[in-house]
């Protein structure tokens, strides 16, 4: 029996939800709109919404100053690399925690999460010195490793909670059939775990993309990602709302598009075991 829903109620819901949704989205919308205005229009009072001379001059100005593609490419490599490496290392760990739990499993998990509470700035000097010793300064490899380690606890936890949802009976059945550990993982678990892994990958890609402390402090020119790109626009001289908006839009557009197109996937796995 479906719940009876009157059209009036549905309309009211729609209006309220859309208003709130647009309110929450407004800062981003406003940034995108402003990026197409001239500097003078950007601060116009009353604010201009759609009826202004749309211009691309801010994007041209930003691109002229900094090579966007290189920052973008670094962001993709660093976020992608750290996520990939993280998942490769975390999947076996999460698998064993979920299916061969011991008394200490939960302690280990919570300990892993607690490493994320270490204030980054407190260990900047130690890490910087280590990076110099290892020759990792301003390299993408160095950042891939650091971001992988930073996000590892979250990856392990997400995967762990996801794996736990997989019924053990299926595993036992496959074992009865004489499947080896390898087969068990490859043919039984992997297909069921794939959605969870996918959303873990997405979440961590987003977290790595937006990480702004290490990516800024451990890079110079060669490995600098979009967080460094935006750091050169935070306070330009004179009127700058439009240029700031253009640079901001360029920095967030790729991750926004990725997020929008994959949000169903992301939401499916973004439960951290909350649903039970």
């Amino acid at each position, binding site marked *: 029996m479906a719940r009876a829903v009157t059209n009036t109620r549905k309309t009211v819901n729609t209006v309220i939800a859309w208003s709130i949704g647009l309110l929450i989205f407004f800062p981003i919308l406003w940034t995108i709109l402003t990026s197409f205005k001239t500097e003078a229009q950007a601060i116009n009072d009353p604010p201009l919404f759609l009826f202004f001379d749309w211009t691309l001059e801010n994007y041209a100005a930003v691109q002229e100053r*900094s090579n966007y593609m290189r920052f973008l490419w670094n962001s993709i490599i660093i976020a992608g690399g750290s996520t990939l490496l993280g998942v490769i290392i975390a999947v076996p760990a999460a698998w064993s925690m979920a299916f061969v739990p011991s008394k200490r499993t939960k302690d280990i998990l919570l300990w892993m999460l607690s490493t994320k509470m270490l204030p980054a700035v407190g260990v900047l000097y130690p890490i910087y010195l280590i990076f110099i010793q290892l020759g990792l300064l301003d390299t993408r490899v160095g950042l891939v490793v650091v971001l992988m380690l930073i996000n590892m606890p979250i990856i392990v936890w997400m995967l762990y909670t996801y794996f736990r949802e997989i019924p053990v009976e299926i595993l036992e059945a496959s074992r009865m059939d004489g499947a080896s550990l390898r087969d068990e993982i490859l043919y039984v678990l992997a297909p069921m775990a794939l959605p969870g892994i996918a959303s873990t990958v997405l979440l961590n890609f987003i977290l790595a993309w937006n990480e702004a402390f290490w990516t800024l402090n451990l890079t110079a020119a060669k490995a600098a990602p979009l967080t460094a790109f935006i750091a050169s626009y935070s306070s*330009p001289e*004179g009127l700058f709302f439009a240029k700031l908006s253009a640079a901001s839009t360029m920095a967030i557009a790729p991750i926004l598009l990725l997020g929008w197109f994959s949000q169903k996937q992301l939401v499916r796995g973004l439960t951290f075991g909350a649903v039970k």
Partner: protein
Amino acid sequence: MKTNLKSKIALGVVAGLAMSAVASAEELTIATVNNGDMIRMQGLTDDFTAKTGHTVEWVTLEENVLRQRVTTDITTKGGAFDIMTIGMYETPIWGSNGWLVPLDDLSEEYNAADILPAMAGGLSHDGTLFAAPFYGESSMIMYRTDLMEAAGMEMPDAPSWSFIAKAARAMTDRDAEINGICLRGKAGWGEGGAFITAMSNSFGARWFDEEWNAQFDTREWSDTLNFFVNMMTDAGPAGYATNGFNENLSLFQQGKCGMWIDATVAASFVTNPDDSTVADKVGFALAPDNGLGVRSNWLWAWALAIPAGTQKEAAAKEFIEWATSTGYIDLVAEKEGWANVPPGARTSLYENPDYQAVPFAQMTLDSILSADPNNSTVDPSPYVGVQFAAIPEFAGIATEVSQEFSAAYAGQQTVAEALEKAQALTNDAMEAAGYR
């Protein structure tokens, strides 16, 4: 002996020439601040590459990020940069630690003697130049000639603070969104901290007495801060406690300020009709004083320095010679006009008739010449620097002090409370550093 030395030098020069001829093209990594003049320099890098074959990778960062980035790198000898853009505060400290390559062997053609003595002095340690000024600045008054006239007043060339306060109140028209005066209130030693320190000098205040005791409990400091807060409350823009250089520049360009006392380099931005709505109505005057013999203008330079230990010292020097030379000034003048050349670094620029025609040239030079880092306070002080004290601890202390001041500007605490906290935290930090 003498001939021996001479021949050695000759040999060295020949070897140097030979080396530079053979030397392969290098790739330089340069950290710089995102100010207009530096952005312009980035756009002209091709000229450097064409002349020398070296290429340049720019790391352009906002001032605070840049500072934290280059300081971390230099203190750990990270070697991430071949050239760093630093200021008058960092240069003597880093130079004395042996972290910078001395720039005492620049070429004849470069003519280091042409660098303004005030700038060269501030960028040296023990008489050795450690950074070459890209541009230099002092601070001065920029004001709206039309509003001044409407207020029935006339700006003297060297006004006093009481005149400024009176004019500011007279020019204020809240309904028309015109604030009589826009000044920096933003926390940060290089933002509001720099302004209030320079201003306090003209009120007879100082940071430390000769035994390095903090001086915020003196009447001079309380006079400075009270004067500032009263004037800004009556005639300043809303939210001035968070306004720094950029915010004020933007307000002035929109015609929302009657007067603005800030860096002399701003003169070219406010008179540029592309960005400024008031470009043809701007006058200039020396920063105000209080009749105590010290004006309230500062002295600063953004300069290029080479971290010791870089593998690319020769190429880095070539770049510095290119970027801070008269040739570079000519290049910018040719492409963007004389008003846009990097100011305040070279004597010859102010002797150039083309540049003398620029409306703010003379006032800039006068301002620079009237600031003396070695005698910045009325009463004697143990430190060098006008709007800062050139000791390693200053940046940290002054940022915290200016945060207390900003909280007072915002009305979160009284001036007296702010000064009391400033006094305590400064003495604390100086004790920790072993001064007292």
